[in-house]
């Protein structure tokens, strides 16, 4: 009986710890499991030892479209995944809200934009989005090889929907990933994310 109570208490404590997880800069990035558009379960901890980019996405948001139509984000995805970076695009739009698309439509858009993310993950209950504090699309979180969250913020410093702005923008994501790939420290840790609000349920 005592053992049963002890096990129950441990289970309770474990589930509470899971619920209480919250992503914070310079701390271990909380683990999650989400299904991708091919029906595969993707576990963040399976990619420990790798640099992981989490990108909150909503293909119907004009700010996201700016970076996909210009191929700014697809080119980064291609460049960095070739160097071993894991790029997870996460959609936290709830069913019926902007950005929540059928799998066929998502695949069509990925092809249309020549996107090269490692995974497109569905987070329709918004649990992972809220755990990381994702506010906008796009909103980036970058995890280093040690599993620590080292960057949260915008893709760049030009909060607009104008494609022309990309040329003169400071690309924070590229700067952080380049620094991590060369074994250095990210030049910036936190910036203001800009874009559409995440369409949580």
């Amino acid at each position: 009986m005592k053992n049963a109570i002890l096990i129950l208490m441990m289970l309770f404590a474990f589930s509470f710890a899971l619920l209480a997880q919250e992503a914070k800069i310079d701390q271990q990035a909380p683990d999650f499991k989400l299904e991708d558009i091919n029906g595969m379960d993707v576990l963040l901890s399976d990619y420990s030892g790798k640099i992981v980019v989490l990108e909150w996405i909503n293909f119907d948001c004009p700010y996201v479209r700016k970076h996909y139509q210009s191929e700014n984000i697809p080119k980064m995805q291609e460049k960095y995944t070739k160097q071993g970076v894991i790029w997870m695009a996460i959609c936290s739009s709830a069913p019926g809200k902007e950005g929540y698309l059928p799998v066929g439509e998502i695949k069509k858009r990925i092809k249309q934009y020549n996107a090269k993310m490692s995974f497109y993950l569905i987070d329709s209950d918004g649990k992972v989005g809220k755990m990381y504090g994702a506010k906008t699309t796009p909103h980036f979180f970058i995890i280093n090889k040690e599993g620590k969250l080292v960057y949260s913020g915008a893709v760049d410093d030009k909060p607009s929907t104008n494609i022309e702005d990309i040329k003169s923008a400071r690309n924070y994501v590229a700067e952080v990933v380049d620094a991590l790939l060369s074994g250095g420290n990210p030049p910036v840790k936190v910036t203001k994310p800009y874009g559409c609000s995440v369409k949580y349920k």
Partner: protein
Amino acid sequence: MKKFALLTFIFSLVLFSASFAVEKYRDKRISIEIVPATKVIEKGKTNLFAVKVKLTKGWHIYWQNPGDAGEPTILEITTNIPNQPKIIPQYPVPTYKNTSGIVTFEYRDIVYFPFYLWIPRDFDKKELEIQLKAKWLVCKHICIPGKAVIVKKFRIATGNFQFQQNNEIFNSLRFVPKDTIIGEIKLSSNRALLIFPLNFEDRLRKVFFYPITEGVFDLELEPEFSTNGNKISMRLPFVRYIWGDTSKIEGVVEFTFYNGEKKYFITKFVK
């Protein structure tokens, strides 16, 4: 290919037309114009005007700090008055909106952004020309950015006229904070204590802080407040990822009293 070319042409046309100066900007979602508070514009006086923004039902724009998402509404006024510097109209207190944990500061329906203009006695033009450069993000289920240059000319009175005023603009002044108070800020690891050197005779029911400085405070939680002699203190939790400057906090504080009255102040905090 033809379809793409046509779409590009239409898109360019929209962009091109948007950059032209108009007397009033209007589309399906938003209309923007410059309106005088009085029918007569006079020299040797301070005249009150406003940028009037009318939003179609369901659509909104954002305050100078949009909150967790969105973009600020940017308004800049210039005139043909010599040596008149650029004017930023006053922003009335916005509406707080919490959508599934994403907090935004919004304007809906009709909103007036008032501004005052002193016209010198020796102003030698017959007409006062006011130019507004406006930039906004208007949202409903989707967000659409926009910008416009609006130019309006007002005839300057030369005789005595019957004084008529636009009461809507004068009423809107109630929602514009006028006075600035310098407060004190004490920072701890997870929150800030804002201290106002204020004492009200009426009993306070609620204190709310609209931060102009972005990226410091968690906007979702209602601040706790306490009164002590000639000071009002408010505790505000920090946002999870602070990217704003904690050494220069500015905002608008809203005091709500038990009699329903509200008072607004622009506040600046120093460490």
